[in-house]
């Protein structure tokens, strides 16, 4: 999996410090489980399209849905230019 683009989300009220990561391939269950290694995985697979959250305590929350090519990262409000290198690396290690 590759991160194709990082996009600052300006209209998100859940956190004013939000980044969307655009991925090279659709999100699958194995990929979500791979992300889940980073923290606590909450999976709602009873929804029409399964939704997930990965809470990395004290760091950030990842959320997204199966089949999409975007995940949303809610970062701490008070940290500008939060370093996402290790997350990007973890994503790109999937199916390498």
């Amino acid at each position, binding site marked *: 999996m590759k991160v194709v683009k990082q996009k600052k989300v300006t209209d998100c*009220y859940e956190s004013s410090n939000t980044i969307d990561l655009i991925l090279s391939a659709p999100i699958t269950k194995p990929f979500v489980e791979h992300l889940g290694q980073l923290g606590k995985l909450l999976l*709602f697979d*009873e*929804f*029409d*399209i399964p*939704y997930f959250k990965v809470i990395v305590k004290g760091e950030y929350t990842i*959320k997204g849905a199966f089949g*999409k090519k975007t995940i*949303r990262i809610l970062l701490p409000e008070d940290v500008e230019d939060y370093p996402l290198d290790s997350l990007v690396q973890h994503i790109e290690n999937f199916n390498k």
Partner: protein
Amino acid sequence: MIYLNNAATSYPKPKKVQEAVMASFSGPLVHASRTGMERDEDDILYVCRSKLADLLNIEDPLHIIFTSGSTEALNLALKGLPLEGGNVVISAIEHNSVIRPLKTLEKEGKISVTIVECDKNGYIEPQQFAEAIRDDTKAIVVNHCSNVTGAVLDIAEIAKIAHSAGAYIVVDASQSAGAVPIDCKNWDIDLLAFTGHKSLYGMQGIGGLYIKDGIELKPLKVGGTGILSELLLQPEGFPIHYEAGTPNTPGIISLYAGLQFIFETGLENIIEHKKKLYKILFDELADNPDIEIYSPKNEHTSYSNFCFNIKGMVPEEVGYVLEASFDIWVRTGLHCAPLILPYLGVEPWGTVRASHSYFTTEEEIYKFVEAVKKITIIPKRK
């Protein structure tokens, strides 16, 4: 996709609107009587003004000025009225299209602004405006229908209060035009701003301002009018004194087609359909302990907006999951109406707003209801 964001912009548009807009590009859009001063039945500007006058009960169609939307119409009204040195009364349910022009005038030291509180559903009793009026109040500027909760105010009574104090009544009908009955003549409205792309089913980029006979505004813009070109100053008279530049003819064509759709369908039938869907939403969700509803249930409502939150969830996440997992589009956050938040008790995140239209089906509403019920498990799973 289930589209429940009609309070932002209506979708789909009636087939008639789509066809009219497409047809408008099959020939040149230049028109001989672009000003509406000639009462030519073939002049799309005049026939559109006439249809608007029928819908809004306006005596002279030429007193309807075309603008790019409500924001421009409200800027024309609020910057054009002689308000300097006075007080303006607004309400807590105003949109930023009213708040920002007036707050800018206040910051420039030209006016003062008084804000009337609303209740937990966004409703305001007319008497509250009477209590807010001061000796120097020059206008009441009020939202007919809240774009957040859908609460509808009694404009006729508020207009009486304004006029008894010698103040103007300026109405923002962005949400109400085409959604609820409006009667400019009998309600004695001085200025009424509307947009074409919501419940009037037209395109984005077209709207207007009704100006009552006898009221003079300073124009927001001056320039070419297509006639009286020998004059070096903006010509007098309605509507050209306020309409400089090439008109948005495709937008006006779309608006006219939208108005035709409303008259053919019947405003009462449109309201009845939305009322039926609104009842389903309340029947299915009002007693759910995980959901807080902010829209008025039975009265003082447009039956168009269902404004709510799921307890323990930020509205943005509710909207995100509705779209990502159920392909249902709603609007979340502050809805460009920041003053209402404390009265609903929804600071700082705002609310989720699901707004249906005449084209929304019962099946879609039930799918939305089921999705919302499913989403309520998110905050419970730790």
